[in-house]
């Protein structure tokens, strides 16, 4: 694994709920990232984020890591959960709260 892929693996395994996003939780730089933050805030879970705009290698690296072409990307306990559409869909169905509250406690 490359250094970048190892860094990503560390982020997602050392934090039970982790979001790669554009911008920060207080200042998202993209509507899709803002939606993901809104969902996490609503669920009320603890989470950490990484701003991919601050690091071009991570920005490309997470796309390779999850075979997923877009940002944001949500991980729970090291597992890729989805991008903003899936996060929203799983939030609406209640699946996301269940996943986070069962796995991340």
């Amino acid at each position: 694994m490359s250094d970048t892929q190892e860094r990503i693996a560390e982020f997602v395994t050392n934090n039970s709920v982790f979001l790669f996003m554009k911008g920060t939780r207080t200042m998202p730089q993209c509507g899709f990232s803002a939606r993901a933050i809104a969902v996490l805030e609503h669920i009320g879970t603890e989470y950490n984020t990484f701003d991919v705009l601050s690091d071009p290698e991570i920005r490309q690296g997470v796309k390779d890591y999850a075979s997923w072409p877009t940002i944001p990307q949500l991980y729970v306990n090291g597992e890729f959960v989805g991008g903003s559409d899936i996060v929203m869909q799983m939030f609406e169905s209640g699946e996301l709260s269940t996943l986070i509250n069962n796995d991340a406690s």
Partner: protein
Amino acid sequence: MFEASRIREILEAGLPDCTAVVEDDLGDGEHFSAIVTSSAFEGLNLVKQHQLVYGALGDLMKKEIHALALRTLTPEQWAARSGQ
């Protein structure tokens, strides 16, 4: 600048039993939303369903398509949604 109708054609050609409804949300040829139905989605989780769509679009996701809000449905879910 990319046409929503072109995205629909690519998806319907690339996925089995596929119906795609694609809209150019901002009219800018870069930000799209799509509802995609395919029998290939049956039995797959949402991540794998979306990966099939991204796979069909290939390199378009890297450049031409800046954003694609995506909802995937199996034919059964589509029928239920359409009230048929």
